[in-house]
């Protein structure tokens, strides 16, 4: 287990020292959400109606932007090779990197999300569900994103390819994440949606590292 936490610690240390990375992701998130009132007009009912969807979609896109630093830099300077040659199973290494990625990307997005929803005049009943849904959904985004990042590693147009691969796989999280908030605003129970988000996370926890490791091995040959 020392190796696992050492890898998490190293990734956290790197993210902290190259602090601009995480800050840029949150900055993009804020800017993109702020564009919507300019685009669709400042009418409060309209903004409140689209608030949940806008916050979720821009969080998805912000998470997508941060995925290239998951494996790309380690791959380019040879650190990924060192990690792959450690006794730690590659699947566990991927999980460690996803955890660090979530702590430095997903968690800040989940914290800032409700504030942005307030900017868009989301109904009061929607905030707690939004926090829960984002807390449950953002780890899945990191995990599924790791699969896409590992598949597109070393490809010619890795960034665009990554978006093409990852966005369809993000759709279930998006559907249920938004549904949780909108159902809460409408007064319906949200437990089923949160349960499905949890199920998606629990399914992604073993499957995503396994798939990502399977995709990383040919990259390291």
């Amino acid at each position, binding site marked *: 287990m020392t190796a696992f936490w050492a890898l998490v610690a190293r990734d956290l240390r790197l993210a902290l020292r190259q602090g601009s990375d995480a800050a840029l992701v949150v900055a993009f998130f804020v800017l993109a959400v702020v564009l919507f009132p300019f685009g669709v007009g400042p009418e409060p009912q309209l903004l409140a109606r689209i608030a949940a969807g806008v916050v979720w979609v821009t969080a998805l896109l912000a998470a997508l932007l941060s995925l290239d630093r998951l494996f790309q830099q380690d791959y380019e300077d040879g650190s990924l090779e060192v990690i792959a040659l450690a006794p730690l199973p590659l699947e566990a290494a991927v999980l460690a990197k996803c955890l660090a990625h979530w702590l430095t990307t997903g968690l800040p997005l989940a914290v800032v999300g409700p504030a942005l929803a307030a900017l868009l005049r989301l109904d009061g009943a929607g905030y707690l569900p939004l926090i829960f849904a984002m807390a449950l959904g953002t780890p899945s985004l990191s995990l599924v994103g790791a699969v896409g990042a590992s*598949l*597109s590693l070393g490809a010619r147009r890795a960034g665009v*390819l990554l978006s*093409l*691969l990852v*966005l*369809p796989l993000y759709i279930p999280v998006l559907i249920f994440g938004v549904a949780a908030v909108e159902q809460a605003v409408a007064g319906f129970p949200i437990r089923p949606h949160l349960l499905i988000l949890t199920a998606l996370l629990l399914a992604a926890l073993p499957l995503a590292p396994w798939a990502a490791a399977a995709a990383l091995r040919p*990259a390291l*040959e």
Partner: protein
Amino acid sequence: MQRFANPGRFMRLSSRVMPWCGAGASIGLAVGLYLALLVAPPDYQQGEAVRIMFVHVPAAWMASFVYAFLALASAVALIWRHPLADIAAQAAAPLGAGFTLLCLVTGSLWGEPMWGTWWVWDARLTSVLVLFFLYVGYIAVVNGFDDPTRGARAGAVLALVGVVNLPIIKFSVDWWNTLHQPASVFRVGGPTIDRSMLVPLLIMAVAFMLYFATLLMLRMRTAIVASRVRAARLGEIEVIPEPQGGHQAAGSVT
């Protein structure tokens, strides 16, 4: 070690089988379309528009079937590293994407008179759209690397990851309250569709399957010959000696 250079059995088998499949597909399509467009009765509710079903439904079946084939071939490629498995998967992908696109377009054309809308975001349509993106993503990944073996491996992993979409497509009309019609052929309890419509439908389905088989074999044969040419260029396999020149020994191609 030129495993990819001579999958002889497949080449021999496909050269014999392909003409029959091609003929079968042509006849099947001709008969099926004749029955579908001229002989089958109009639906009591939908009228003549129901005839789109004879293209839409087999296309939908093929879209899912080809993806299952793709996933199976990818699993074989990853686990046993059989060289034909990669070739089969890559040959099938554009065909599957074509069937999915056909399904989506004919569905849209059918939906307009029936539901009053070209598109609706229900579970069945969304999951088939995701299937289309999975096909496109697979083709993009396979072609996105300078090293073709790397692209093949990455594509195989993606194909297996996307398999979760297949049960969602199949059961979406049961699990969610959707606008799309529930299953009427492949269901417990037998088909609920009338025989006069079922027969042309099944003929079209068989014709589509034979069409897929023909094109698949054609694409695989082309891919195998292309890889032989590449290997010959790298000097790894014998080049068949020129007929004129008699004792011209087989040698490497520089």
